[in-house]
Every structure is written in structure tokens, then in C-alpha cells.
């Protein structure tokens, strides 16, 4: 999207702005305050509240949906505007229950704030109240219609950001407004009231339950106490809670969060996390981040004998196996152990990602993928994903995909073997390809075919692509006007006469078209794809390609990385990759990883002969990530700090390092030693900021600055079809909201460790199956995931002791035999 800098004046202050921005956002970026209730920064304006009313060049506009023009002069407040705003607030207060004393939102309620700010101390309007009850919409959502001001923020965020579109407005059954108000009230307040009086919020699927992703974002954006988290209802007042800025470590999105803590109970002063909050204007969370907060290792004490055994274990260790739920600092400690003691470091997901990144670097000359997800979300209007299960792998990548459809009038192509019922609903220009596992290279070729300048392609690739094209004919039905002669009777004169008329008629016609074999091979509608794609490309300017974990765990990962480099080179597409696990990117940059574990294995949150565990189940306790400070590297290539929310009573990895003579005083003293040749910057932990500015600028840690690599291997091998899997396929994929043992430990996340299948497949399989892999077998319950389509079944890997990586090996897909019953 083009950006042109212009200047506008708001309340006499000259403000820099970009053509096409909303007035409200320009004002916010310049520290000028305009009240606004229904607008959410990254979603579409709904014009439900109308309180953001301002005057632009003397005309009344709503600042949340009026775009700035060069030289515009804006007045944010005058008597007429204030009168309108006061009337709006009075209307919101009509029949709003006077129950701030028990309301969970009290103290952080926008209705309270604006009512006080506008000095509403009396009421001029009245209407009989309607009974509006409470409802539990899901395991986490609690709605109190009595408190709802129908700002529709929940509806908007669920549609424009999350993508579930699980909420809508429904009938309230309220009395119509007294006609006399129309003439006597300010007009915006009247029309706002008119709408308010007709609606409440209901699940959009027509049932009593949302049946959604349970991300809880709707509860976060609700300005009042109407939508709350079920577990938090009446647990604590907002002002009692201490906010700890932190980073969610469940997946690689590394979202900014606040843990909110308070003493556990009257008789127990230990801090407890009551909820997680977010800066919802700039960062959306998923259900794991919002509800999976209580995974701390609470019972840890300093057990000296266990500690001594751990030191001895580390001294004799041949291998350290660890998960990516680890800070950069700890990863650096492990790398130091490797360098000084020669241990092998094993972490399957980070290793696969590391070698993919390396292959990409060798092919492209860039040290890391060039773009980040935030800029893709802001700027791109056409997004393609290959090899990432959008709904499960990384919720924020899915939000990016969805938000592009909704906000940038975008289009998207989703390549994935597992069919999904939700992704196609993100927008009308979303195409999905349910190709076979192993055909990812074909998908990449199709991307090249669609987006690359043919001439710029290397000969071999161009020839491969051209070989898939052939002219064919298809039958189209067309409407033509045909002249027919009919005999009509004039109704007045009863005379018969013949007239010639033109009537529409549908005819079938054979037309020639360019048949794209790639589309056909990938399971698409090759006959009509050119038309579909033409429509998708309409007015598109900025393209993006997102790659995911399927490609890192792929027999031909290197070739895929080279294809990615080629696409980046010739396609004018932004390119970003989804790191497979929490801090997989950090680990991939910091550690030299080995393929196989040998000899005596020390596991850090992973299986081993001696286990260091933040779950409290190992041989020595370690702090969980909500009990530690340190940095994480997120998918936006940002090194972000996290702070400890809860106390921890045991030993840390740094203590073990100290016993080995390798430690530092504090864990965060390692922050400045992170490898600068891999893009880290030597900044003191305490100097790292962790928040957002009013204009949405992210001030969190710093951005990686990975130096370029040497371009060595760019040759692309032709697709040979060897790796394509047929038959019954299992896919290693966690249910939504589950990522690791840590989410599993959290009490509000209960998605079980089971086999997930489409409704039809689940019916076929029955209640329980034995899954037989080449390398072993596993018995699992069968659970229906309503949103899966097709025959592939999903097997989670979030419980590390189930050793699922070993069953799947270096591929995320496996051919398996499913045996019914036990």
C-alpha cells in the first residue's frame, strides 16, 4: 500500500499523518485524546457508539472511520459535540444496573470512566427495562447481557482478528423508543439508542454455545463487565491485582502479556496468578496464553542432595535433551556446556528449523527470513501459507491470515493436506488446497507459477512449470439473448399478432483455457482456477508467503528452503517462517544442535536419564517460565523480555552453571553475552523496554540484526514424487490451546491427549484406536474436531513423555495403520 505523508491540524496542533489513516489513530499517535468506545485499532470501525464524533473542516464526522485528508482541520471538542457525547453516555446509563460494587470491571470500566469524565450526574431519558440474563457461552466465557452496552467490540474482534466470527447481535426484545425523543434528543445519541434498544449479543451459530476457539479475546476487549472469563468472575477487583509485564512462552508468537497476581487467599499470602491481560489494541492472544497461566513449579525447594546429583549428572552427561520452552539465556548456558564439556545438544524441533534456516541462508544469502508477521498483517493484501496448520500451530499467524482478508480486502491461499472448515470462512477470496503430504514442493512451484516473472526463473524451474501447462477446452454456460417469434393475444382487442422478442437463454459453449496441471496435482479446481485466481488478484499490491513446520520436518526440507529463497528473489513477496515451538528461533540461533542423543542423557523439560524439570516431576526442580526472568526470541525476530510473576524456591540452571564454574551472578547477566554474530545485541536485561506506545509502536526488547550469509547452494532439484505419502496418514499436530506439558498443566486447558479426527473419520474409527507406526504404536481415544475435514488424523505431541517425535521421525506426517478398539 502506498503511503503519502500529509499534515493535518487537530485542535490547532499540526500533526503528521499518512494519507488514508483514520483521524482517531492520528490523534492517538500525537497524544491528542478523543473518546472512543467501539473502535478497535486493528479492526474495522463499527460506528456503534458514536462518541468519537469530531468536526473536520466544519463537518461532523466519526473520527474512527473518517480518513484524514491533506490540510484537514479537526476540532475534537466544542459545546455541540460535548452535548452529543453527554447524551450518548446518559443513554448508556439508562437501565444499566447500578452494580459497580460487585462488577468485575469496576475500576477499569470504560462506561464508568466516560460517565465520570463527561460529568454525567443526572439522567434525562427513560425506557422500561427488559429482562436480560446471564449465560455461560463456553468453558471460559461468561456473558451478562444486563451489563452489555452493545458496542460490538466482541463481535468485531472475533470476526476481524480471531476469525471465528462466533458472535453476532441478536434481538433484545426491548420496547421501541418513545417517539418524542426523536425530536428532542441529540441525533447521534438517538440513533445509537435506537440500535442499542434492539440488540444483545448472542453466539452466531444459533445455539447457546459459541463452540469457538476459546481465545478469550472478546472478554479482553469488552469495555464493561458484560463479557468475562468464567473462572475470574467475582474473584478479585482489578485494583487489587499487581501487573507483571511478561511474554507468553507457549508458542513462537511470543505475545506480550501481563500476568495479574495477588495473594492466594486470606490465610495464604503466596502470590497467585488470577488472570492474564493483554494490550488488545496491539496484540491479540489465544486461549493458551490467556488461560494457560498456572503452570508454575510451586512446590520447589532448595534440595541440596538433588542439586549435587544434578551437578554430577551434568558432569558425566553425553547429551542434554531440552525443549524450546526455554529462555535465550538458558539456551546460551547449554551452548556454553557444549563448548566447554563437549555435550551433545538435542532438540528436534529447533534442529529441524535450524537446518531449514541454514539451507535458506545458503540459498538466499540472507541470515534469516526477511520479513515479520506484523508488517505482513499491516501491509499485505495477498497471503499464501505453505506447511503450517493455521488453526493449531501458531494462533497469531492465523490472526494475520484472517486480518488480511478482513482489513486489507485481501485474498489468501492455504496449502495444507489436512482439510479445515474454518480457514475458508476467513474471506471470500480464500482458496484452500488439500494436497497430499509430500507435495509441498509442488505448492511452492505453484506459488512461483502464479507470482513470479517467468523470465526471471532459472531454466530448469521454468521448464518444470511450463510442463504442467497445456491448453484444454472446457464447457462454459453463457447467457445469450435470442430472438424468438411468438404469437400473442392483445388483452384489449383480443386480436392475435406475432411479435419478435429478445429472451435470455443459457447456452453451453466450448472454450479454450490454460490448464494448470500444478493446480490439478494439488487437488484444486484446475478447470476454473484461472478465473478464480484472476478475481483474487484484483487490485492486489502486496504479497506475502508464510512457511511452517511441515517444511522443516520434511524429507526434502533443503530443497524447499531453496525454493523459498527463489520465491523471495523473483516474486516480490514478503517471506516469513513460523518457528515450530516457543523459543525455537532463539535456540536455533544460539545453540549448535545435534541429531541424535547418545550415552547418558540429561533432559531439561524433556525425557532423559536425569531430568531437570520445571513441571516439578523430574529429579531436580527448575523454575517455569512464569517464575523466571530472561528473554525469548519470537517469530517477529524480536528479542523480548519476560519477568517473573511468581516466586520460586528452588535452584536455577545458572546455579548449576555456577557449581560447574561457568555461571554468572544472575541468569539475566547472560543477556549481554548472547551471540552478536547471530543477530543479538549486547543490551543489559534491565534496559530492555516491554510495552507499546500510543501509536501502536512496539517497544519490546530489540529486533534481531542477523548478518547476511554466504550464498552457496541455490540449485533446485526437480520434484520426483518420492516423498508423497498415500494411505492412512497421521499428522503430528496439537489441538488448539495445547502446546506443551505446560499448557497441559494449566487447569483451564483440558484438551486431552488423544487422536483428533474429522466427524466422519471419528465415526468410522469408534471410541478408541491403536495407531501403529513403523517405529512403534500408541493407543489413543478418538476425539472429534468439528473443524477437521478429510481422512488424515491428528496426533498431538504436547506431552513430552509420550515421545511422539520418535514415532514420527523427521517428518510431520506418517503412514500408519489404525486398529479399532483396544
Amino acid at each position, binding site marked *: 500500500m502506498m503511503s503519502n505523508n500529509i499534515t493535518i491540524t487537530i485542535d490547532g496542533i499540526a500533526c503528521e499523518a499518512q494519507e488514508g489513516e483514520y483521524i482517531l489513530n492520528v490523534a492517538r499517535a500525537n497524544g491528542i485524546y478523543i473518546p472512543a468506545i467501539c473502535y478497535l485499532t486493528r479492526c474495522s470501525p463499527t460506528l456503534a457508539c458514536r462518541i468519537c464524533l469530531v468536526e473536520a473542516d466544519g463537518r461532523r464526522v466519526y473520527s474512527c472511520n473518517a480518513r484524514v485528508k491533506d490540510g484537514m482541520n479537526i476540532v475534537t471538542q466544542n459545546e455541540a459535540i460535548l452535548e452529543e457525547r453527554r447524551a450518548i453516555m446518559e443513554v448508556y446509563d439508562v437501565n444499566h444496573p447500578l452494580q*459497580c*460494587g*460487585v462488577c468485575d470491571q*469496576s475500576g477499569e470500566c470504560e462506561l464508568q470512566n466516560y460517565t465520570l469524565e463527561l460529568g454525567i*450526574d*443526572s*439522567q*434525562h*431519558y*427513560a*425506557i*422500561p427495562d427488559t429482562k436480560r440474563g*446471564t449465560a455461560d457461552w463456553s468453558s471460559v466465557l461468561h456473558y451478562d447481557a444486563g451489563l452489555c452496552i452493545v458496542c460490538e467490540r466482541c463481535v468485531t474482534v472475533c470476526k476481524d482478528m480471531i476469525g471465528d466470527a462466533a458472535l453476532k447481535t441478536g434481538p433484545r426484545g426491548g420496547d421501541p423508543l*418513545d417517539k418524542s425523543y426523536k425530536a428532542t434528543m441529540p441525533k447521534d445519541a438517538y440513533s445509537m439508542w435506537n440500535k442499542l434498544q434492539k440488540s444483545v449479543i448472542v453466539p452466531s451459530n444459533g445455539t447457546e454455545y459459541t463452540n469457538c476457539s476459546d481465545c478469550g479475546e472478546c472478554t479482553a476487549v469488552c469495555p464493561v463487565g458484560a463479557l468475562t472469563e468464567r473462572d475470574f*468472575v*467475582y*474473584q*478479585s*477487583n482489578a*485494583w*487489587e491485582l499487581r*501487573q*507483571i*509485564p511478561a511474554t507468553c512462552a507457549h508458542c513462537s508468537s511470543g505475545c506480550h502479556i501481563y500476568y495479574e497476581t495477588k*495473594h492466594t*487467599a*486470606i490465610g495464604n499470602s503466596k502470590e497467585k496468578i488470577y488472570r492474564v491481560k493483554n494490550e488488545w489494541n496491539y496484540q491479540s492472544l489465544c486461549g493458551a496464553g490467556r488461560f494457560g497461566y498456572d503452570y508454575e513449579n510451586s512446590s520447589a525447594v532448595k534440595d541440596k542432595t538433588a542439586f549435587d546429583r544434578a551437578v554430577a549428572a551434568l558432569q558425566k552427561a553425553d547429551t542434554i535433551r531440552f525443549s524450546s520452552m526455554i529462555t535465550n539465556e538458558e539456551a546460551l548456558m547449554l551452548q556454553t556446556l557444549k563448548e566447554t564439556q563437549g555435550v551433545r545438544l538435542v532438540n528436534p524441533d529447533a534442529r529441524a528449523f535450524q537446518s531449514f534456516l541454514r539451507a535458506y541462508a545458503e540459498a538466499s544469502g540472507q541470515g534469516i527470513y526477511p520479513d515479520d508477521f506484523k508488517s505482513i498483517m499491516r501491509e499485505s493484501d495477498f497471503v499464501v501459507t505453505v506447511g503450517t496448520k493455521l488453526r493449531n500451530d501458531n494462533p497469531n499467524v492465523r490472526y494475520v491470515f484472517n486480518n488480511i482478508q478482513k482489513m486489507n480486502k485481501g485474498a489468501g491461499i492455504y496449502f495444507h493436506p489436512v482439510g479445515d472448515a474454518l480457514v475458508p470462512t476467513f474471506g471470500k477470496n480464500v482458496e484452500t488446497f488439500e494436497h497430499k503430504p509430500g507435495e509441498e514442493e509442488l505448492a511452492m512451484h505453484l506459488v512461483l507459477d502464479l507470482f513470479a516473472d517467468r523470465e526471471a526463473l532459472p531454466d530448469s524451474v521454468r521448464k518444470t512449470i511450463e510442463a504442467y501447462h497445456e491448453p484444454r477446452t472446457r464447457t462454459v454456460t453463457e447467457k445469450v439473448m435470442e430472438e424468438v417469434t411468438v404469437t400473442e393475444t392483445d388483452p384489449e382487442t383480443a386480436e392475435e399478432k406475432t411479435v419478435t422478442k429478445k429472451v435470455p437463454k443459457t447456452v453451453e459453449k466450448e472454450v479454450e483455457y490454460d490448464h494448470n496441471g500444478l493446480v490439478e496435482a494439488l487437488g484444486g479446481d484446475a478447470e476454473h482456477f484461472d478465473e478464480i485466481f484472476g478475481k483474487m488478484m484484483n487490485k492486489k499490491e502486496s504479497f506475502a508467503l508464510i512457511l511452517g513446520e511441515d517444511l522443516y520436518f520434511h524429507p526434502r526440507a533443503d530443497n524447499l528452503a531453496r525454493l523459498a529463497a527463489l520465491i523471495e528473489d523473483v516474486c516480490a513477496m514478503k517471506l516469513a517462517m513460523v518457528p515450530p515451538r516457543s523459543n525455537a528461533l532463539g535456540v536455533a540461533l544460539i545453540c549448535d544442535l545435534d541429531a541424535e542423543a547418545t550415552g547418558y542423557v540429561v533432559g531439561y523439560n524433556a525425557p532423559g536419564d536425569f531430568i531437570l524439570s520445571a513441571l516439578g516431576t523430574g529429579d531436580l526442580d527448575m523454575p517455569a517460565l512464569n517464575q523466571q*526472568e530472561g528473554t525469548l526470541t519470537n517469530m517477529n525476530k524480536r528479542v523480548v523480555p519476560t*519477568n*517473573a510473576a511468581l516466586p520460586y524456591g528452588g535452584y536455577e540452571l545458572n546455579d548449576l552453571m555456577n557449581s560447574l564454574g561457568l555461571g554468572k551472578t*544472575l541468569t539475566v547477566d547472560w543477556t549481554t553475552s548472547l551471540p552478536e554474530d547471530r543477530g543479538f545485541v549486547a543490551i543489559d536485561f*534491565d534496559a530492555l*523496554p*516491554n*510495552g507499546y506506545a500510543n501509536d501502536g509502536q512496539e517497544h519490546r526488547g530489540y529486533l534481531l540484526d542477523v548478518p547476511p550469509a554466504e550464498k552457496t547452494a541455490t540449485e533446485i532439484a526437480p520434484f520426483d514424487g518420492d516423498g508423497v505419502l498415500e494411505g492412512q496418514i497421521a499428522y503430528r499436530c496439537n489441538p488448539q490451546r495445547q502446546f506443551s506439558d505446560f499448557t497441559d498443566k494449566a487447569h483451564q486447558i483440558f484438551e486431552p491427549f488423544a487422536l483428533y479426527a474429522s466427524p466422519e473419520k471419528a465415526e468410522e474409527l469408534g471410541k478408541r484406536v491403536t495407531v501403529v507406526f513403523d517405529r512403534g504404536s500408541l493407543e489413543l481415544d478418538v476425539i472429534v474436531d468439528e473443524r477437521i475435514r478429510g481422512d488424515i488424523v491428528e496426533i498431538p505431541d504436547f506431552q513430552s513423555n509420550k515421545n511422539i517425535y520418535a514415532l514420527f521421525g523427521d517428518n510431520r506426517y506418517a503412514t500408519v495403520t489404525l486398529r479399532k478398539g483396544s
Partner: protein
Amino acid sequence: MSLEQFKNRNVGVQHYRMLDLSHTPQTGWGQFKQVVRRTLSLELFVGLKVTLREMTKALFFGKMHTTKYPFEKLPVGPRYRAIHEMKRLLESGHYRCIGCGLCEKICPADAIRIETAYGEDQRKQVQEYTINFGRCIFCGYCAEVCPELAIVHGGRYETASEQRASFSLFDDMLTPIDRLKEQKEFPGYGSVSPDADKRIHKTPLAY
């Protein structure tokens, strides 16, 4: 948000200041001299003068001034501000406290803690409420801030206890249900002002 609080990791290093104790004798001889000086100066009897005088009056002239506490107690005024009482609604007998937590917030001694939950009846339920009388300074802020006239001070002034952190639970303070009729109320802090009718704007009603 400021991150200052997270940067001080020296928890426990307080700012203690030592008293000026320069007069303490350092040698054994010095200490001995101090004892002799204090004993022979008969300072003790200066302090006891009034006591001895009153004792003589009481013992020999029958002029007794003291109340034989704890066998006798003086009546306290109805607005006495000692140990808190939790009131009930006169009609239903339900406790008045709505669990708003304002008393907990305003308490300058941080003596109040309250636990609430979502009740069976879908209302906010007070599960437990405590005041730590080792901390309470009887300032009356809690009673003043309470929007429900639920908490008030009462006449129970005997706060001595074996433990410093003696506290009261919700049930200890709540008006016993069988004595609901005796529950008293007073105008003043916290209660509706006598001219309330004049001072509010009436909200229109559509019924």
C-alpha cells in the same frame, strides 16, 4: 508501565538506622559506677510519689477511684469506634456486604482481606472477610467508604490477645441472626445524609 520495581533484586536490604547509644559504659568499672549512681540517687521514689499518696488515701481514708476491671466495666457511648460490626439487612436478614472491596482498598493499615466468589444464586458471595486487629488503627475509613452501611465500628474494645495478629472473621462480626432486631443504626459517616433528597437529581422512570 515502569519496570523499576522489577529491577531491585536486593529484597530484604532495608534502610535501618542505628540509635545513638554513646553513653553506654564500655568497661566493667564504668558499668559498676552507673549502677551505684542510679541506686543511691533514689530516683525511683520520685516516680512513686503520687502512687504512694493515692495508695495511702485509698487504704486508710476510703477514697477509691478505680473501677474493678474486668469485674466492672464502664458503659461506652453508642458511637464508640472499636471492633467492627457487620450488619444485616433488616428485612431479609441477608448480610449487607456486597463484597465490593472498597474497605479493603481504603484501609491504610492494609488490615482487611476479603474473598469473594460467584455464588449458586449467580450473585457475588462473600466467602470470608477478615480484619487483622494487630494492624487495624481504628481510623474508621472502612466504615466511611462502605456503600452499603455494612461495616461499622462497635463497642467491643477488648483487643488484647496472645497473638499480635489476632483477627476477626466474618461470622464473628456479623450481627447474630437472632439479634437482628437489636441492630442499631446511626446517622453520620457512611449513612445517607439527612438532606439527600434535596441533593440528588431524580432519575426519570418509564413505568
